[in-house]
């Protein structure tokens, strides 16, 4: 089960996780580092090792801003944000696992919240 899940995540991300040279520049750049339990460099390493379960259950999936700074800065072109997105999709696409429902939106609204944030949130957190 784990092997299949690992293969599926690697395939859907389009990333070759073996290219990572463990430099840590992605985590060094990540603006959400402090909020995350598992950081970008750990995502890449744990997907390579097949430790997908802890990642699926972690809140870190939803703290990633998809700012792509890690993709921009990675010297090896590993694209960690795509790995995070692939794991997030694997989590969200399970039955009944939408991270965001329309019912939650009214409580989150305020004058400063741009329309685009709601659209992006639904793209990222639901299937």
């Amino acid at each position, binding site marked *: 089960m784990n092997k299949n899940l690992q293969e599926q995540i690697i395939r859907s991300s389009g990333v070759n996780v073996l290219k990572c040279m463990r*430099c840590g520049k*992605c*985590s*060094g750049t990540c603006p959400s580092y*402090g909020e995350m339990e598992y950081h970008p*460099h750990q995502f890449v390493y744990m997907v390579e090792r097949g430790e997908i379960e802890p990642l699926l259950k972690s809140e870190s999936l939803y703290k990633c801003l998809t700012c792509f*700074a890690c993709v921009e800065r990675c*010297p090896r072109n590993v694209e960690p944000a795509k790995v995070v997105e692939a794991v997030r999709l694997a989590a969200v696409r399970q039955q009944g696992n939408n991270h965001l429902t329309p019912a939650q939106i009214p409580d989150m609204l305020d004058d400063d919240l741009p329309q685009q944030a709601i659209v992006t949130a639904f793209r990222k957190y639901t299937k």
Partner: protein
Amino acid sequence: MQRIGVFVCHCGTNIAATVDVKAVAEALGHEPGVVISQDYQYMCSESGQNLVKNSIKEHNLTGVVVCSCSPRMHENTFRKAAAAAGLNSYMVEIANIREQCSWIHKDIATATEKAIILGKAAVAKVHLNAPLTAGESPVVKRALVIGGGIAGIQTALDIAEAGFDVDIVEKNPTIGGKMAQIDKTFPTLDCAACILTPKMVEASQNEKIHIHSFSEVADVKGFVGNFTVKIKKKARFVDETKCTGCGLCTEKCPMKKVPNEFNMGLDNRTAIYIPFAQAVPKVATIDPNYCMMLKNGKCGVCSKVCSVGAIDYKQEDRIIEEKYGAIIVATGFNPIKLDKYDEFAYNQCADVVTSLELERLMNAAGPNGGTLLRPSDKTHPHTIVFVQCVGSRCDDSKGKPYCSKICCMYTAKHAMLIREKYPDTEVYVFYIDVRTPGKNFDEFYRRAVEQYNVHYIKGMVGKVTPKSDGKIDVQASDLLANEQLHINADMVVLAAAIEPDKTARPLATMLTTQMDTNDFFTEAHPKLRPVESATAGIFLSGACQGPKDIPETVAQASAAAAKAIGLLCKNSITCNPCVAHSNELMCNGCSSCEKVCPYGAITYVDKEFRMPDRTTAIRRVASVNPAVCQGCGACTVACPSGAMDLNGFSNSQIMAEVDAICK
């Protein structure tokens, strides 16, 4: 009719595992002209070669085919064996059934079939081989070293020591290269200038060494032993023979705002300048981009104060031509430009510097006289962060794929020197790996950590942000503590990748030598021939061949010198006998061949021919100079009448090979 012997090598199991060598020997034994066909374990061994020699004598062989590894490995071995047995060396052909057969194919049946076909092609070719004698061409006993850094200087000193004349061509006004800009060298912490300048002086005083400074190679023609090189001596506007290097002109020059290249632009120099105090030659040079006299016709102070009248505003570039037997390339390296690394704020903040700039900042002859001060406000830095691998080990389009080799060591050196001189300054080094492969290198790095308390952190800097209070916020990851750090730094030093000098690629085209995609010169064999290029007579010395530190550079420089000396000490070298020749009776004098020859080896001569009616007519026919011809074959295809042919790869030989393969 030829009497051909075929020898099929097992090469241990390298060939025998995937090719049935006995079947190959058997099949080839049936080919027309083959009188003996056998297999053997290791043809290249002494007993294998003896087998060939004995067979030649015993069976009166006129041609030999060896089915073995690539001719690029052992063609010479078997040629020598044939010559030793009294058979002309060029009656030997090799069929490549290892690199191009047994090593790439897995199915024994098809691999054996292919080996037999390749063997048949070689047999067909040997049938048409004619004995060839190699000519000789003289060797000019003079060497050219392109580049006057430590690599070029060491090579020149070694060649001069052997008694040959050497010319050094250096594009900067002085020799010395990057090593002259370095403060101290690892792992001994010797002062670089102290160990370099004696060599520079020795080079300038050695009778056999001639330095062409502020010069560039403009054109190279010829071939090994006989290169004709045009050197452009750029105008310094100062007469080298008169200038004493007193420096008065540099003191009096009113244009003082020229960025000083020697100090990496961190301070200024005058328009007329001597690059540094120990420059060789110690001669002033005028920078035409900044000199007011050369640009606007105003000033002229330097020529007024010069007591020997060495200033010559009318001086022009001139070209000299010289002949050399060997050329050694020593063009060196430069740190890369950091334009694509805005995350480190190199262009935005004056206190973010490269390691070479730091080297100048710490040097006693540098912009601050040896006191390390922040470039922005000249205050003392209390916290310095070193970032490793900037632009190295990258798999993207921004940086270089290779490791630059010297950065781990020089950063440890910088860190130690700073900690020793300023114990109150904290030093952090963010690394991916620490690479310390040389003698005493790892011990050196451990001293930095254990004795000098340099903080080595495994992780990478993600972002450098200059702050309004003048300090720099460095955001980085610490992978072992699993934290993201923010360091309030005063200076950030980037270990930028190194790349070959930009003049290297045009030079490679002039020399017809090969380079790889990173612009490093390609050596003839990466393991066994690291200082020669594939082009005969061109040798490689120093960082132009690959990133390396000073001990390796000096070792390689001496190795290149040894190879060059091996060439120069010969009075003549044997030419390649596989040259073109023209059948006078078929040549109609059209000049097509002359036009395509890259070496100018073909000329036209008027010759007398006896006509059928017993008169004599004079006709213009092609004549190939066998010493100059390199055997490319361009003329053979250009010739419309088929008069031109190539020894060793003649039209009939190649067509026989084609026939054998397609049957």
